[in-house]
């Protein structure tokens, strides 16, 4: 489907991966290769199709969706899948994280005039004007780096993250660059023409509407909340080893039935919370999303392991159990009750992250 044999399957990062990358020493500028651990990323089939469509049509993919739904990680997942065999996969991933003050030119280059002025002063004393070459003071931005790749068969991935944070005119300022891949640097009197069109992934949290002219050029995909099955799959792949997962008639499960039941319980509870927040959206505001589920499950799992072998203590009289478990009684009791199916949602603060929403939810 995609040109140049680039077809994103979403399979590569379905399990944790350790991928090579090069690190430059900030002091002596020497390079060394090291392995980077990348957490699994499991996209839903619609997202995979949208990525492939954008790759094929050579159009930017604009991703929107609730905060925490995994928009930003798409670019890393695509780059990891395509370039994990390269000595440095991050050389094919250019990330541009937008701030409210970001200007379009920063994506192309920045010229450090002050440093050059300082060095010119030194050169005035030493007579060494060679160090004043203007190239030394030009720092290319992620956009220019992505469009400067030479290998035409290896399209780099460019992430423009949270484009809606910038000024209203920002997206329009990028139109020519994204369309034509041509940049002019007046200080160098140089025009950069790209040989390869990067795979451009743009994310937005819809804080501000984007200009129509910009939207017209994009493949637009809204990441819907993930299905319970995919959420369970994500948790299995992040928190359990490959050997702990088995496949029975196209259904994936954890080999340990107790673990599977616990995981199912957590996802069901999470979906119930989602539904409730949705129904009280006006009071509660932002809904819980995948990234909160991952954090929440991490803490649930941690205390579940802590609870191992201590269940019998919690079955005792409260006073006695408190004396025996001390500080950890309260936390372990939450997990214990949760597993027993008692009306209790442990660690709500991890899901909601702010006290006000949490209190309103409890009401």
């Amino acid at each position, binding site marked *: 489907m995609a040109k140049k044999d680039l077809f994103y399957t979403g399979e590569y990062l379905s399990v944790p991966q350790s991928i090579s990358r090069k690190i430059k020493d900030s002091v002596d500028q020497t390079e060394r290769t090291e392995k980077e651990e990348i957490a699994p990323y499991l996209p839903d089939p619609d997202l995979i199709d949208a990525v492939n469509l954008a790759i094929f049509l050579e159009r930017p993919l604009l991703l929107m969706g609730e905060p925490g739904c995994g928009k930003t990680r798409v670019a890393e997942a695509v780059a990891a899948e395509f370039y994990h065999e390269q000595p440095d996969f991050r050389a094919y991933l250019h990330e541009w994280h937008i701030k409210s003050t970001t200007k379009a030119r920063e994506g192309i280059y920045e010229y450090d005039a002050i440093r050059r002025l300082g060095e010119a002063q030194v050169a005035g004393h030493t007579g060494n004007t060679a160090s004043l070459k203007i190239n030394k003071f030009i720092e290319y931005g992620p956009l220019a780096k992505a469009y400067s790749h030479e290998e035409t068969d290896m399209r780099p991935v460019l992430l423009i993250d949270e484009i809606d944070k910038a000024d209203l005119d920002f997206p329009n300022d990028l139109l020519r660059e994204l369309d034509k891949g041509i940049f002019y640097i007046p200080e160098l009197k140089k025009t950069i023409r790209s040989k390869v069109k990067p795979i451009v992934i743009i994310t937005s949290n819809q804080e501000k509407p984007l200009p129509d002219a910009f939207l*017209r050029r994009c493949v637009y995909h809204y990441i819907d909340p993930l299905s319970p099955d995919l959420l369970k799959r994500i948790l299995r792949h992040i928190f359990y080893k490959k050997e702990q997962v088995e496949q029975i008639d196209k259904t994936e499960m954890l080999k340990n039935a107790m673990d599977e039941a616990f995981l199912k319980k957590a996802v069901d509870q999470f979906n119930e919370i989602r539904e409730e927040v949705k129904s009280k959206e006006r009071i509660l505001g932002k809904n819980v999303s995948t990234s909160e589920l991952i954090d929440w499950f991490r803490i649930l799992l941690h205390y579940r392991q802590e609870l191992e072998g201590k269940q019998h203590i919690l079955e005792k009289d409260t006073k006695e159990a408190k004396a025996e478990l001390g500080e950890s009684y309260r936390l372990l009791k939450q997990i214990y009750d949760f597993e027993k199916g008692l009306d209790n949602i442990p660690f709500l603060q991890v899901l909601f992250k702010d006290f006000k929403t949490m209190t309103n939810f409890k009401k």
Partner: protein
Amino acid sequence: MKHAVDQYPLLYQLFLKIQQYDRRLGHLALGLKEFYVLVQALDQGLGMSDEQHFKKLVRWLWQKPHHDPQVFQSIMDSSLALIYEKSAERKEELEEKDDSQIGKGPKDTLSELDRDKTEQKGRTSSEEDLTSDTQTVPKAALEEDSLIISFEKASPDKDKAALQFDIAQLSEEINKEPYLLKGNYFELGSRQLQQGVRTMRRREVDKSKKLIDLEATIQKVSRQGFLECLEYRYGEKWTTDLTILIDQGDSMIAFEPFSEELISVVQKDKEIKGTVYFFKGTPYDEVFEDRLQRKGISIDQLSEAPAQSILVVSDAGAATGRIDEARVEDTVDFLAGIRKHRVAWLNPMPRERWRKTSAEYIALYTSMFFLDQTELVNVVKLFKAKMKSSTLLDKYVQEMY
């Protein structure tokens, strides 16, 4: 690739509908380039495995964040359903005329599409090229501006041309809608309003930001001959200090949907910090924070507030068709009270209706504009240029105070 040729009328229908939807929302409509992108994708077999995939493809390429997903979905569904129906009717007609011709002729637009899709599954485009006897759209045609012409060029079979739908007639049927008084029937759509109000913003010194002043630093170096220290300047930020005064008198009832649009633009957009007040007919002593006039602020408070842009939305008595001297006098008094601010008046009544009414006289004392795109640009210019109040108003103030 015969099926793709047959699909163009369907795509074009959808395309027209979505264009209309965009325009109704006050957004830039999809362009032909976007149509071609979809054709290009279909040519490669994308979105052809089943109807769901086809709809997804349309959504990815033609749906935008400002579209309501449910409305977009219903546009797709209604267009598809109507075309299914039309297609079936046409087929019946043709079958009555000549059964044998239909057998040899091309497939009906959508009736055989599902079958095609199933056949299509798993086939590569190169295989299709070998097996198909008609070429869909030549590559060169994709470059052309006129899409409709390229469809016709691309359909060599006369029978196929007979199967093309009467697009104009179909569009007419699709567009039959009951009348509803909505904000988007006015000359200014919500999008234009939003953009207009946003462009009213202006730069202001932001003392919380300190930036290196490159020019001042270089000037200092060239003066002293060495770099001693950097020069700094304050940063800038955008501000929109906009106060909107909305007339909710009887003659303004027809324009209530418009004023609601304006309120939602000013209050919901995080980029705009606007305040809205209400009054009836003429603002006398106070203006109110809500339509029920429960809580108000005095005109004195408004006039003493830091200088800002004030936009009055009122027909200024134009709807009554007569001159109300008291109204003119009260309004001019009010305008004199808030003269330190930049004031613009947006009148929803057409200019010719101002003649021989209070509006004509009030317009002499303020900058009054009709509610359309061109005149909104003038409101922006007025707010940005810090234009002076009218000389007549100055004269009036000199005489009165």
